């Protein structure tokens, strides 16, 4: 599984960061980004799916294979 944060959509709600701090980072302006190349370790997949499902801006997206 791989994910990305659409910079144009992210408004800094920080829901992804709250759910999976191992995978997402937030900057001083609230913008989220994915740490690394977006590959999601198996152990984080379930919480990452929640991050996708909880983003109010639909900014967290799974990258199709």
């Amino acid at each position, binding site marked *: 599984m791989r994910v990305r944060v659409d910079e144009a959509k992210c*408004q*800094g*709600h*920080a*829901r992804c*960061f*709250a759910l999976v701090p191992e995978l997402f980072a*937030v*900057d*001083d*302006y*609230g913008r989220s980004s994915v740490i690394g190349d977006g590959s999601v370790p198996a152990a984080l997949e379930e919480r990452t799916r*929640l991050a996708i*499902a*909880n*983003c*109010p*801006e639909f900014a967290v997206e799974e990258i199709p294979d």
Partner: protein
Amino acid sequence: MTRTAAVADWTSDFDVLDPGYVLDPFGIWDELRTRFPIAHSDRRGSTWLPTRYEDVTAIAHDVEHFSSLQVAVIPFDGTPPSDPVLPYGLPPISSDPPLHTWTRRLLLPWFSHARVGSYEAMTRALCRRLLATFADAGAADAAGHYAQQIPVRVVAHILGVDDALADTFTGWVRDVLEFADDPERRARGVRGLVGYFLAEIARRRIDPGEDLLSMLLHAEVDGAPVEESLVLGTAALVLIAGVDTTWSAIGSSLWHLATHDEDRRRLVAEPGIMAFAVEELLRAYSPVTMARVVTADLEFGGCPMKAGDKVLMNFPAANRDPAVFERPDTVVLDRAVNRHVAFGSGIHRCAGSNLARMELRVALEEWLAAIPEFRLDPAAQVTWAGGQVRGPRELPVVFPVPGARATGTAR
């Protein structure tokens, strides 16, 4: 309120200050959502009230047609975008791009995740100090003695203003937001805030500190200082938006826990679900409604909107939309999928959302640690405020005094 005549038809003549609506808007929203998902009223100028998540979020994202130049749910009787003291209102909330973009950028770092973390210890100490004043009494006003006392002091700390004036600040903010229907009271609140912040600004020109107000005053944007009216508006915004809103969320959450024994006991027993519970309580009792003004005649959702019409961004109703949330009227403390928009949606996402979440979580953690068992006082009345911000204003609760329990359980 005296000006509120009874509402016969909520689809064409709604009134957000109707006492029944303030007390329990949820059933009205459900009915509107199925029958007439964008209601209309002429009671305070031509105003639209969407209740569906899809409509509310679509309008929030269309900043070209739905401007933030007038965000007050209860319109000012005067004409303040042309106010000489606050020509830009309270930016960034009352502005559109490009002004919105750079004023918001000045503010955001003060409310970043990392910065908010640095306010947590003082917030926790404050909550404990407040609880110590009534935990042995067996009764308290959870709104007036607790919820109301927390955010104003945290925000005063961030702004660098004297938190001994907390009650005065709260009075001004209530005048502006809660008593907005009373022009004299609203004007008094605005006068109080403006006069106070102008004096604080003058002081910091000579003697700047490390606080948000000093930063705004000494910031340079494109090589130029920020206009004083913008500093004033932004500082007033931080106080206005940071006080009533979070206080209402804390109060509503405590009301829920006072009236739902199973949820309260579950949250005490399972502190690990707190992060989910905070989001769920924010969803179910979203305090804030903002307004937008239509910029050009257009049709939206089949409604003929005219330039100058207001739209009430009904985030609280969106968060109860069954098209998005399963069992929307039930609080599910560990609700896992919860795409709520309590902090808005789009470019005006609440700049203080990290702070509000921290304050709500810490306030609940500390209350439950000190007073795990409590219920509404059957001999007293809960009162609610509504309009721009909905939450309990008096929340009398009773609870067993610590002496009756084993020692050392609470704090």
